[in-house]
């Protein structure tokens, strides 16, 4: 892959047809039509697996493994959903879905709370308070983004084992309270776009930094904070390696780990219920994204990831 670029404002080629307004307008309509067709084709490709998951989740079990696969179920089994949730785990050793969902929710919510609080405080400090060594430390912080997690995995595990946290949820959410480089960077870029005069005016009124942070900066930074919240939410919700390392007992498993355990034990049985469970897992995240996306994208755009 090549990154082609030299000078942004440099030599732009001239299209000889551009001076003809008639042709230009026809081109424009054609262009919009082509964009729409491409978008629709790509949407179908991206949506297909998900649609398949939805369709399967309401199929009778015998229709989940037909050759060729069918798109339209002979009957719509909506009760697959309550079945997936209430399946008795002791009887059939099936996914104890409510327990996994509760575990995942606890870990995810604590991680989001930790990440939003810690990262915003740290980023505020990097962006708006002067202290010796700050800029050097920020450069070091950015450099840590290139350290892959597996490099740190063994010592971090030993550390948590030494404290006696292995088997609990703590190794999965406590680190969120200690901030992370990417979120700090994102928030710092955003905080820097807020005029310093606002802080100075508040300081003259006798506000402390914490007051300024809570009453002035935080309310103005909702888009960036929502980006950090959503990224942390997705990271914790989807995490597989972490729970795989730290969780031992079946009843402490998260949804990802539970799905994997089920998949490896039972292979392809009960696909319809498995898919119904997956839909329930995914649906809240999609709803949150759909309604928050404008703020979300604005948050990334304003922080200028560069």
């Amino acid at each position, binding site marked *: 892959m090549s990154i082609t670029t030299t000078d942004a404002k440099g030599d732009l080629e001239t299209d000889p047809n551009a001076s003809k307004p008639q042709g230009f307008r026809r081109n424009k309509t054609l262009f919009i039509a082509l964009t729409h067709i491409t978008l629709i084709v790509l949407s179908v490709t991206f949506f297909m697996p998900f649609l398949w998951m939805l369709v399967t989740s309401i199929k009778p079990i015998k229709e989940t493994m037909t050759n060729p696969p069918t798109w339209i179920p002979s009957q719509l089994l909506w009760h697959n959903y309550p079945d997936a949730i209430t399946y008795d785990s002791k009887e059939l050793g099936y996914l104890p879905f409510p327990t996994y969902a509760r575990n995942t929710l606890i870990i995810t919510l604590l991680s989001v709370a930790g990440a939003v609080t810690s990262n915003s405080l740290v980023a505020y400090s990097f962006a708006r308070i002067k202290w010796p060594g700050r800029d050097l430390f920020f450069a070091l912080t950015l450099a840590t983004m290139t350290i892959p997690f597996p490099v740190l995995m063994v010592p971090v595990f030993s550390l948590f084992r030494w404290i006696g946290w292995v088997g609990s949820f703590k190794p999965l959410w406590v680190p969120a309270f200690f901030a992370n480089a990417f979120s700090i960077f994102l928030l710092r870029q955003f905080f820097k776009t807020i005029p310093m005069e606002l802080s100075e005016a508040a300081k003259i009124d006798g506000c402390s930094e914490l007051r300024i942070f809570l009453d002035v900066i935080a309310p103005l930074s909702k888009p960036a904070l929502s980006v950090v919240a959503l990224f942390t939410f997705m990271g914790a919700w989807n995490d597989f390696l972490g729970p795989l390392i730290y969780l031992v007992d079946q009843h402490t498993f998260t949804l990802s780990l539970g799905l994997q355990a089920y998949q490896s034990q039972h292979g392809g049985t009960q696909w319809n219920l498995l898919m119904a469970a997956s839909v329930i897992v*995914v649906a809240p995240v999609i709803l949150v994204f759909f309604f928050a996306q404008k703020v979300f994208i604005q948050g990334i*755009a304003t922080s200028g990831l560069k």
Partner: protein
Amino acid sequence: MNKRDARVGILFALPWILGFMIFTIYPLLASLFFSFTNYSVLRPPAMVGAANYVDLAHDGVFWKSLSNTFLYAIGAVPLSAVIAIILAMLLNTKVKGMAVYRTIFFLPSLVPMVALATLFLWIFNGDYGLLNVAFKVVHITPPNWLGDPAWTKWTLILITMWGSGQAMIIYLAGLQDVPVSLYEAADLDGATFWSKTKNVTLPMISPVILFNVIMGMIGSFQVFAIPYVMFPDGAPARATYFYTMYLFDNAFKYQRMGYASAMGWVMFLITVILTLAAMKFSERHVHYEGG
């Protein structure tokens, strides 16, 4: 810069100062130390010199997992970047229904990896998989997606493409930052779509491309959940046994934590070298505003 500011500043930064020490610097140095020891959860580390590194050099599985990971990265990183940029550019044309398209493209990124892997295991299934039915409709014999070691890596790369939505969002944000005036100037000069893409769009988002490519490279070295679920132990023929899977197995399955730490440090050095190379390359090719 006064003393009170400094105190408050450091106090605010304290979570990260601690996080940096406890969760980054300490483990980085500790894993360097462990890499020169024989160590498991059952016994304390015992110094063995460079033995772990010597063993790595003679370990066929290590080389296999390393080359698998490289091949996967070489396929997945550029392909995802191209798809993500195309998606972002399409969405940036301000077409109707943008919110819906954006959600659809982002959808696979929201699906937990394990659920995604389970789903694709089924879609790529040779007997009743959705994909093979599509192939049969057009009378092409589909490859054995999950059973042929020559194909399994491609299956994973294809699945990775579905996750392009996450990078797309970042590119989209970058595209929205490109000043409209640049396009207006190009339009006045009668620039075509391609020349605008080549001379305005790509240069303006080149820092975002660099960031995404570096993060994509580091990310593909950590590919774990999807192959772990879809191809246990990289079966068949270890074709999908990746670096992080072998590192994980050494640490937690074979209890060879010293050996796993050596693998960790090799991985760290590789990512440092690749990142520096990408940045060196970018000096000539990446455009920074005002620079």
